[in-house]
């Protein structure tokens, strides 16, 4: 590997993804974890992927960026090319290219069609009139908003799941809202007729009028409103706005036009690997027809995306259908539907519970032998949904009186303990996480829910399984006798790891937001620097911007190490300990000009001591002008990478340890970590750099590098552990990226890598599984996060001296140009050292004469 250049590969497979909806984006996420592909995304919409499941929240205050699943910068970081407003109009299967309406062509090795679906608009005369809209994209929502502003009445055509969502949106916009459904009931796919009737009553109680068994004949001019909808039974309804939500149709026109097999009623036919009739073209999501079925939910689309990505990468995985059970809240009404809701299975027996006072309806469908749950309908109360779903999905044998499962809990209710669930039980169906996965995560060291969520990704999709996940996790923790409480301080009831996950998940960028949402009080010297460090690890903003400044320990505030007399020391970075004579001369000149004490540090750097606060900017200006930058010697961050000269000069060196040390130091400089971190690289096993006593140690071998981790230990010295052997340059760097970022994520406040590794359940072996075998499937994310930090590096001193506002802080006194007279030095061995207390007292320089009685005197005075 050329250590001075980014590795470039010219032979990457070209992957073109048509469509950037939730499923198309999920595919990109899945595939971009491998480096062997150049992914190009073509989106017909003017924006990148966003969360369509929560689209209606756009009307209750969520913004476009809240709904966004990805940003342009993130795609850039992932190395994904993308083009917006790029609708594909042509596929050339022989030449393997696609062309957009604008005429841009892209060649592919593999083509992914993730074009999704479009809303079906029934062929009603008048459907083209203005203010007749559909509910599908953010652009649609914008139109609906604009249209609603001009009217007072709105109608949704279609009483299915999406139609009711749309009705909710109209209601949110303040319109008098109606739902018009052709069938005799609402949500005919998921609910039986009693459930549908009850849902109707509940929704009407909320002020939405529901019209069932209405076939719209035509839409004409209205008398009071813009439109009049005329129905087949002779009645009519006037409205200003009509939203069609009568089902979806797959966007399969490209497949039709360019000769891929499509189903009789539409949909691109795919096999279990999501390949279309053309083996290099895949289709996933709502445009795809599997086993004659279109899946109109996001979870099956995600599964397809995963299968397609795995197949392209040469792994065997197959799509075998998906459970279409749903639980949702429509306008505050809880609705759940599981499996065979309509009891179509021969011999099925039904048990129902109906409560007309509270408008609750529950039905379970049980197999002929009474042993298995086939389906369920829940309206008004879905509290049993999770356990019913587990009975259905896992074939768990039902209790003797299964109706007890849905009866109100007046008597003994046979609750399905999570212990009864088999390890194969799916807990999170969006991300396909089983109970076994969760147990594994706990066995491998996760000590709380946040960690389990992070490592298994459970509950990071729709979030519907959050309660069940917690129950499973709590039960497993209890079994192990675990009650792990690691609150960072009295201001936050969270550990550092938990705060890390909160900040990352909620994209929190400053302390005030965090403490307002998740803490109490104003913070303290414990939580503030810890949060500052987490924010820096994740976002890598300039640490002295005004909202971060008050959080930093003094070393970070003044970008130097405070010494016992209140002065600071200065350490320019010298990657690998290498320095040119010219720079060395400048350091000498600066030290001489400001009369600084000069010493070589333990990490092969030059430390200049005795600078007063007000001298710091001038000194740094000179060092920066000579081409140097901050050594971060003050931060909880990477300090130094010590090295020997390696094969370049040394008779025994077997690898170029100097280049590697410089590369590593430049790569990780500026990375904020829970504790300071030091590296070393030795060019042979003679170990002149003492790498085995460092947080990260690298020792050259004949065949590459041996990687050692978590040495040092500070007060309790620790020999590093051998982590992996004979690595090539690229793998070495990759493992260090992952190991360090894993530590940054998981470690406690001020926990060294040594203590962290020892406290990690499963220890070294577990860390190896995670970093080398990608046991948690998070390596891709760890690497990306490291890449983001590497890419956003800045020399904090350079930024600081360029800002007049920042320079103001370095004045000793806010109201005087004087300097602190209590800072005094004496000479020793031809250099300065701080004067001792006795020496200062002798010189009459101490102000340490304050007594408690003085203090009381002053505070008793009340001039107001």
């Amino acid at each position, binding site marked *: 590997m050329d250590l001075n250049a980014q590795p470039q590969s010219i032979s990457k497979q070209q992957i073109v993804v048509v469509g950037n909806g939730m499923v198309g984006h999920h595919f990109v996420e899945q595939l971009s974890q491998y480096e062997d592909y150049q992914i190009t995304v073509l989106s017909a919409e003017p924006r990148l992927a966003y969360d369509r499941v929560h689209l209606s929240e756009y009307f209750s205050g969520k913004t476009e960026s809240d709904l966004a699943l990805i940003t342009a910068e993130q795609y850039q970081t992932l190395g994904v090319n993308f083009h917006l407003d790029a609708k594909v109009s042509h596929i050339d299967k022989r030449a393997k290219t696609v062309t957009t309406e604008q005429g841009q062509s892209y060649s592919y090795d593999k083509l992914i069609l993730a074009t999704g679906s479009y809303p079906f608009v029934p062929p009603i005369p008048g459907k083209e009139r203005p203010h007749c809209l559909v509910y599908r994209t953010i652009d649609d929502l914008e139109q609906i908003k604009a249209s609603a502003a001009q009217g007072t009445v709105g109608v949704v055509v279609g009483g299915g799941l999406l139609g009711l969502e749309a009705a909710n949106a109209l209601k949110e916009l303040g319109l008098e809202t109606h739902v018009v459904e052709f069938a005799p009931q609402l949500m005919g796919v998921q609910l039986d007729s009693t459930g549908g009737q009850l849902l109707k009553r509940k929704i009407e109680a909320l002020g939405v009028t529901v019209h069932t068994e209405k076939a719209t004949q035509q839409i004409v001019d209205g008398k009071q409103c813009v439109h009049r909808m005329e129905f087949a039974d002779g009645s009519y309804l006037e409205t200003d706005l009509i939203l069609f939500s009568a089902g979806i149709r797959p966007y399969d026109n490209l497949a039709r036009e360019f000769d891929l097999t499509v189903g009789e009623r539409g949909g691109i036919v795919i096999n279990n690997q999501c390949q279309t009739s053309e083996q290099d073209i895949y289709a996933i999501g709502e445009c795809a027809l599997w086993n004659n079925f279109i899946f109109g939910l996001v979870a099956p689309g995600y599964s397809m995306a995963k299968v397609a990505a795995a197949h392209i990468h040469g792994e065997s995985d197959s799509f075998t259908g998906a459970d279409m059970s749903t639980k949702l809240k429509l306008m505050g009404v809880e609705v759940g539907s599981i499996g065979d809701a309509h009891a179509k299975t021969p011999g099925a027996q039904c048990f129902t519970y109906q409560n007309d006072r509270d408008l609750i309806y529950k039905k379970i469908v049980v197999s002929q032998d009474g042993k298995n749950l086939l389906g369920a309908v829940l309206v008004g109360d879905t509290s049993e949904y999770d356990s019913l779903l587990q009975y259905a999905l896992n074939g768990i044998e039902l209790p003797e009186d299964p109706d007890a499962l849905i009866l109100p809990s007046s008597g003994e209710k046979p609750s399905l303990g999570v212990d009864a669930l088999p390890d194969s039980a799916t807990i999170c169906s969006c991300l396909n996480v089983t109970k076994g996965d969760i147990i594994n995560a706990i066995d491998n060291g996760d000590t709380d829910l946040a960690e389990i969520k992070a490592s298994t990704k459970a509950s990071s999709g729709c979030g519907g399984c959050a309660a069940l996940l917690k129950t499973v996790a709590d039960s497993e923790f209890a079994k192990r006798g675990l009650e792990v409480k690691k609150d960072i301080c*009295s*201001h936050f009831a969270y550990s550092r790891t938990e705060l890390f996950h909160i900040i990352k998940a909620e994209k929190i960028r400053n302390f*005030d937001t965090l403490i307002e949402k998740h803490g109490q*009080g*104003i*913070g*303290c*010297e414990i939580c*503030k*620097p810890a949060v500052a460090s987490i924010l820096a690890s994740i976002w890598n903003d300039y640490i002295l911007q*005004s909202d971060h*400044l*008050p*959080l*930093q*320990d*003094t070393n970070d*505030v*003044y970008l130097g190490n*405070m010494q*016992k*007399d*209140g002065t600071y020391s200065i350490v320019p970075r010298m990657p690998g300990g290498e320095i040119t004579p010219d720079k060395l001369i400048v350091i000498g000149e600066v030290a001489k000009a400001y009369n600084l004490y000069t010493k070589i540090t333990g990490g092969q750097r030059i430390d200049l001591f005795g600078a007063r606060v007000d001298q710091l900017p001038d000194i740094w200006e000179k060092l920066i002008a000579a081409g140097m930058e901050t050594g971060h010697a003050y931060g909880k961050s990477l300090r130094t990478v010590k090295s020997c000269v390696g094969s370049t000069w040394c008779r025994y060196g077997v690898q170029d340890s100097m280049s590697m040390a410089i590369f590593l130091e430049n790569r990780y400089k500026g990375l904020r970590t829970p504790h300071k971190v030091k590296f070393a690289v030795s060019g042979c096993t003679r170990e002149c750099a003492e790498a085995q006593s460092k947080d990260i140690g690298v020792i050259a071998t004949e065949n590459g590098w041996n990687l050692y981790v978590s040495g040092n230990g500070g007060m309790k010295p620790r020999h590093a552990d051998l982590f992996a052997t004979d690595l090539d340059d690229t793998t070495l760097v990759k493992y260090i990226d992952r190991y360090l970022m894993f530590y940054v994520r998981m470690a406690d406040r001020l926990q060294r890598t040594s203590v962290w590794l020892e406290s990690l359940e499963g220890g070294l072996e577990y860390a190896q599984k995670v970093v080398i075998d990608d046991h948690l499937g998070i390596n891709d994310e760890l690497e990306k996060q490291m890449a983001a930090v590497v890419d956003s590096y800045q020399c904090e001193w350079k930024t600081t001296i360029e800002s007049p506002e920042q320079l*103001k*802080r370095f004045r*000793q*006194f*806010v*109201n*005087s140009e*004087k300097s*602190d007279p*209590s*800072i005094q030095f004496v000479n020793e061995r031809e250099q300065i050292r701080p004067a001792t*207390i006795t020496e200062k007292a002798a010189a009459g320089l101490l*102000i*340490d004469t*304050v007594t*408690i009685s*003085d*203090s009381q005197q*002053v*505070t008793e*005075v*009340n*001039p*107001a």
Partner: protein
Amino acid sequence: MSTAKNWQTICHKQDLVKNSGVCALLQEQQLAIFLTSDDQVYSITNWDPAGKANVLYRGIIGDSEGEIFVASPLYKERFSLTTGKCLDDEQLSVISYQTRIQDNQVQVFF
């Protein structure tokens, strides 16, 4: 100190940094002056009696059971900004001064 105490104007409010401190020189005494996010100003002596250096203005502000304090940047002893008492060591304390903002000027009763 025999002279009568009075309100002394130190600096403009904008010279302070929110949620952190600055240092002022008043009759050869060093004062650490803090501005909190609710726009309250506090002054204590800048001398850290534990670390024996003029550094308190460079500490982090926090609260402990409602008591607002600064933690010394040297060895982290916490001093109440209202009473000057050290929250970690009864033996230690600093002087706290009445402080106010008047027409955007920071004033200390000194």
